[in-house]
């Protein structure tokens, strides 16, 4: 039985191999303490650029299926299923085996358990994904904990031992990573929380690239709150300025990263709602003011929007040419109807898989700016905002 949280040393690359791959790094410490200007090229530079470009390919986006065991448990509970490894395996098998998924999905983010799992037919999950032309990705953060000295805000853990974990995940077949930190507008956000979120992301990104994984950089500005869209915009501008500045200081190679921002919308409890055109206008302005063109792809999170809302907003953003691929990295907004259709029953698998394909195709069209919204179900339009959502 796989024990998800203990790192199994048999999967670590041999010490000598690891040092050989990273030997160029060990000598960099011998440079004079006067300024060590780093040339961005590392052992994996070309591969990182290729991986990022592949994930950011036209008409495709990311399926986020990296729910931790606890969070996956909530999903399973919502359809009356027990949170066992077998059920998690059954559900993830359903997702990765959707025929033709690779036409619309370029990458799938996995939780550690899933990265080392096989499908119910005994095939490695990563192999199924690769055959589908879907890059396997891996969640590498260790979750949010309270940030001492802040206004009841959080910070994201996971830097300890991150280098060796990334190396192991690369060995297992992962080619990109994801780290989710959060910023809360009702709690400020305090300058401390923003700084910590940005610095943590920058350190993670640098370490991931060093070990062959394209880092998805995700500072989620939570939807919770009564604030209007202008306030979200202001906070987002500040957060992204910090994130990029610290990434530059950490010598992160921008051609080899992907971003996972939240769209700029009013808070969930704000009385004034925004149209897709307004969301698009504010979000694109944010991107134009903060994102250097070297970044190949921007994969938006859905953060509690309904399936249709998330698709409409993405479509609005792709009505003109952008200097980066503007796409999706959706979890709930791709999986919701699929999960409900499955209901845990083997006889529903095919139907469930079809609904996932429908959502994936809709978002693919949205990425190309061609989504029309015809034939959407009522289920798909239901909002999925959960107040105080813990992931």
């Amino acid at each position: 039985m796989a024990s998800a949280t203990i790192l199994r040393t048999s999967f670590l690359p041999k010490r000598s191999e690891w040092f050989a791959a990273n030997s160029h790094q060990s000598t960099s410490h011998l440079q004079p303490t006067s300024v060590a200007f780093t040339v961005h090229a590392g052992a994996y530079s070309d591969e990182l650029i290729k991986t990022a470009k592949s994930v950011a390919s036209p008409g495709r986006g990311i399926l986020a299926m990296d729910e931790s065991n606890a969070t996956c448990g909530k999903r399973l509970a919502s359809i009356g299923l027990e949170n066992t490894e077998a059920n998690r395996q059954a559900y993830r098998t359903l997702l990765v085996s959707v025929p033709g998924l690779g036409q619309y999905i370029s990458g799938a983010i996995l939780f550690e358990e899933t990265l080392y799992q096989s499908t119910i037919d005994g095939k490695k999950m990563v192999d199924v994904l690769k055959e589908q032309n879907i890059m396997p990705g891996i969640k590498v953060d260790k979750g949010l904990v309270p940030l001492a000295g802040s206004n009841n805000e959080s910070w994201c853990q996971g830097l300890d031992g991150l280098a060796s974990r990334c190396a192991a995940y690369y060995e297992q077949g992962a080619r990109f990573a994801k780290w989710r930190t959060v910023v809360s507008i009702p709690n400020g956000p305090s300058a401390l929380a923003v700084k910590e979120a940005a610095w943590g992301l920058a350190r993670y990104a640098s370490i991931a690239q060093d070990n062959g994984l394209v880092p998805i950089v995700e500072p989620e500005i939570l939807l919770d709150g009564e604030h209007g869209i202008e306030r979200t915009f202001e906070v987002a501008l500040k957060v992204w300025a910090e994130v990029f500045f610290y990434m530059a200081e950490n010598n992160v190679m921008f051609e080899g990263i992907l971003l996972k921002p939240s769209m700029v919308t009013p808070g969930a409890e704000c009385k004034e709602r925004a149209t897709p055109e307004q969301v698009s206008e504010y979000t694109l302005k944010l991107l134009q003011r903060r994102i250097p063109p070297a970044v190949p792809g921007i994969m938006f999170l859905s953060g509690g929007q309904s399936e249709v809302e998330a698709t409409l907003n993405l479509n609005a953003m792709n009505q003109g040419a952008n200097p980066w691929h503007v796409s999706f990295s959706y979890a709930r907004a791709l999986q919701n109807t699929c999960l409900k259709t499955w209901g845990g029953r083997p006889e529903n698998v095919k139907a469930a898989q079809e609904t996932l394909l429908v959502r994936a195709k809709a978002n693919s069209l949205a990425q190309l700016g061609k989504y029309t919204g015809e034939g959407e179900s009522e289920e798909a339009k239901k909002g999925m905002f959960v107040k105080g959502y813990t992931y």
Partner: protein
Amino acid sequence: MSCYKGKYHDELIANAAYIGTPGKGILAADESTGTIGKRLSSINVENVESNRRALRELLFCTPGALQYLSGVILFEETLYQKTAAGKPFVDVMKEAGVLPGIKVDKGTVELAGTNGETTTQGLDGLAQRCQKYYEAGARFAKWRAVLKISPTEPSQLAINENANGLARYAIICQENGLVPIVEPEILVDGPHDINKCADVSERVLAACYKALNDHHVLLEGTLLKPNMVTPGSESKKVAPEVVAEYTVRTLQRTMPPAVPAVVFLSGGQSEEEATLNLNAMNKFQGKKPWTLTFSFGRALQQSTLKAWQGKEENVDKAQAAFLKRCKANSEATLGVYKGDAGEGEGVSESLHVKDYKY
């Protein structure tokens, strides 16, 4: 407030975008009295107001040249000068669709505790001066920060101090209706290679944009005037295509698409070199969501000066030389320059002066 939203918001955006019109660029004619004196003495001309006026009239009144320019940066004295026939220079420009700009910094001073690194002065009373310049017809401003490369430079102090100065200057300009040209010049002096220049440029530009963002500057209403990314002056030269690749890559990594245009400084390159490099950048295939154009001083005026020699009878010849360079650089912004302005005295002459004090 996310960034400047005051009364000049729309005008700043329109003017910044206009300066980046493809096919046009900036003539940097803002040499201080001291510096223009060096130019004049190189052709044995006395540094008096009438001669300074005559040189600028020669440039601004070259028939057919202004169509290639979207802006001219002036020194304060020139902003208030007129042609010999009595027409204010700003009117000559306005009628030709050229925006007058104004140098607003007050030069560099050394930073204590560094090895001769500098910061730029000029923030005191800047708001009032900008208002005055706006009334006189100026619509954009320029402030030059200077950094240098060595094994231990630029220091973090120099980077922080200059980035902050640029950001303060920028927001004050915007509040008073002037589009700020942000100029963090990294001097070409030194034996370093092009990779080093690229690394330093990325570091400096990241700091500049961080400071601009922290100070709530409206990026759509600014311009950037950086050095091109090249090897140091004591290092072997590279082809224009290499300069283009490194320079565009540096900008891709640091410049948000909200900034409408980059107006490169020539920094000691010869006239022809600067034009060829600019041309290569505009031919380069890659993501370039901003216009790439010129803001040249020496690289537009060198052969003109040489042809003029301060003599009335040489004005036609001098103006022909100036027109030629304007047209060549206009073509370079479109990536269609054929190298046919490469002949002529002074055109390929390096304009590099070690440890150049502007």
